[in-house]
């Protein structure tokens, strides 16, 4: 949830709750006040009514000011010490509708006769007043909320502007680029944020650059000594004077140097991909790419008697990427599917408009699945592998925003590459 939405929601919830409670109290107080006013008025009227009660059959209600209606009837022997106030509905002939009335009921003693008197007063004016006041309060609440909402937006647009700008800059920050530098800040907290961000991103950039330079230099500088060792070993192998023992030693040196130079060139490659040094983009047909690599790997596939099943349903799907990286991606995936296959196993290739699936038979991984794409993680039963192939694959996928997933089911490894539309 956005900061603005969340804070607005908090304020709105709290103010609605408060206004509701306040509204209820206010309504009650107002009602009680108006009722006691009415009661007092009715008691006042009682005095007037008493004056006329001697001749109660001749009373003209209209002649009594402030009284809306009056009923008097014999009460027999009933006695009632106190006043009774009540509310009732009466039919108003003039307006053809029921109206609420407040009444005062009491027993009036006229000689030996007890009279039950009810004085009615319409509550419509007071109801109207309460209604109006309630409406006004509701209106005020709405206005208040709208005000808060607008104010909040204003605060966010102005006060927090630099904060959002900082987020935008951080999003665009890459270790290869300049550190994040924000403009002058007049808010203390943002000024601190600015300084922290600047120091942090500067250090990140520096660390990254140094590490990159270090890797670049190391891998590059290693090439020449490796070339020397390799060539010297090869010259030594030509010597007629060496026996089987010495040749065995040389073989070991040779193999290791060979591995080392392969490791070195692969690491160089990863560094270059990370540095986004592959910028060429061209259209490459996915199925064509797969077929070309299958042909190149034909001998090795044949050697292990592996069967390849192709299900091309991509409708001529093309990739837009660097040619070298496309080769790298497919070559490593296929190589992986061959190397980790079983003798006489199968490789299934499925292409769809949005995906490439490579499935191969094989034993379960000897390590945690999450580490599969990590450098130097490999099946320990195999020698001569550095566990760099899949991390290369992952790097290429990252470069082009392809997704890559791995699963293992029924003695089959499945790699799924999700391609963008």
């Amino acid at each position, binding site marked *: 949830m956005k900061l603005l939405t969340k804070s607005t929601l908090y304020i709105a919830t709290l103010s609605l709750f408060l206004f509701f409670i306040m509204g209820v109290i206010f309504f009650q107080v107002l009602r009680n006040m108006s009722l006691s006013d009415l009661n007092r008025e009715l008691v006042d009227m009682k005095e007037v009514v008493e004056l006329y009660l001697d001749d109660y059959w001749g009373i003209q209600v209209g002649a009594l000011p402030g009284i809306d209606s009056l009923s008097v009837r014999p009460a027999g022997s009933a006695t009632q010490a106190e006043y009774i106030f009540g509310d009732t509905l009466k039919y108003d002939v003039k307006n053809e509708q029921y109206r609420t009335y407040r009444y005062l009921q009491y027993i009036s003693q006229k000689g030996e006769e007890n009279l039950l008197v009810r004085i009615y007063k319409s509550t419509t004016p007071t109801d109207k007043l309460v209604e109006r006041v309630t409406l006004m309060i509701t209106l005020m609440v709405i206005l208040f909320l709208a005000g808060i909402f607008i104010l909040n937006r204003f605060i966010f647009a102005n006060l927090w502007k630099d904060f959002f700008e900082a987020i935008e800059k951080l999003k665009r920050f890459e270790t290869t680029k300049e550190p994040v530098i924000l403009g002058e800040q007049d808010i203390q907290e943002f000024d601190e944020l600015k300084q922290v961000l600047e120091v942090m991103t500067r250090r990140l950039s520096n660390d990254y650059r140094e590490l990159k330079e270090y890797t670049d230099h190391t891998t*590059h500088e290693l*090439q*020449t000594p*490796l*070339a*020397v*060792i*390799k*060539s*010297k070993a*090869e*010259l030594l*192998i*030509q010597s007629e004077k060496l026996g*089987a023992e010495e*040749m*065995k030693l*040389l*073989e070991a040196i*040779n*193999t290791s*140097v*060979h591995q080392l*130079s*392969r490791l070195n*060139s692969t690491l*160089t490659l990863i560094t*270059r991909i990370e540095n986004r*040094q592959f910028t060429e983009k061209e259209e490459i047909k996915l199925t064509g790419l797969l077929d070309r690599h299958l042909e*190149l*790997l034909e*001998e*090795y596939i044949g*050697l292990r008697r592996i069967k390849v099943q192709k299900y091309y349903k991509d409708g001529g799907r093309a990739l837009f990427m660097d*040619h*070298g990286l496309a080769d790298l991606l497919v*070559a490593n995936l296929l*190589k992986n599917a*061959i*190397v980790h296959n079983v003798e006489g196993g199968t490789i299934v290739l499925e292409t769809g408009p949005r995906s490439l699936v490579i499935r191969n038979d094989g034993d379960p991984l000897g390590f945690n699945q999450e580490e599969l794409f990590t450098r130097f993680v490999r099946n320990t039963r*195999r*020698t*001569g*592998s550095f566990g760099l*192939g899949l991390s290369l694959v992952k790097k290429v996928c990252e470069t082009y925003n392809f997704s890559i997933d791995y699963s293992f089911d029924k003695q089959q490894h499945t790699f799924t590459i999700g391609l963008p539309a």
Partner: protein
Amino acid sequence: MQILIVEDEASLMESMVSYLAMEGFRCEQASDFHTGVAMLDRHDYLCMLIDLNLPDGDGLELVKLARENKSESGIIIISARNAIEQRVEGLKAGADDYLVKPFHLSELVARVHSVARRTHMDGGEVLRFGAIKVEPEEHTCFVEEQQVDLTRKELDLLLYFMANRNRVVTKEGIADYLWGEYGGGYGSYDFVYTHLKNMRRKLMDAGCPDYVRNIYGVGYKFSID
């Protein structure tokens, strides 16, 4: 005919010179850019091996210079830089081949032979070794005038052996030469054995003596004795 080597790493230079000498090549050596420039026109070289990273200049300039001077020598760039753009740039400048350090000397020799064939023979060249006759341009191989049907890879392997005759070549060297980047990473060289086995069998079936000798499991030597 001579070979010109422009390389600043003395030790590597020494190795190349020794190995090429064993193959019967004479080498002129230049250890920096300026010596290289001065030596460019001294001979009509069979092939020039030029390192890109020189202490006082760019080897690529040397390649361009040689081509401007209408030199018809084969040029092989040897470089620690392994990027497609650099390869393309090198080949565009006029080089015939691009070899990435560290390389096998046997591969260097095979490439020198191959480049020399392309630049100094107008096709129709015939290579002989014992009973074997190969016409590289035609992709054909004969044993005592009887044609042997070799696959492309088997023929490449045979040419590699013939270029490195009487030398021990390692299986890694063979794999790198025949499969390039596909050579490594499989943890075994089974496919090298397979191709080698097939090539030997086909040649021997045609009546050719077996010239391939296994040298203590380190590699193979192609020789008549």
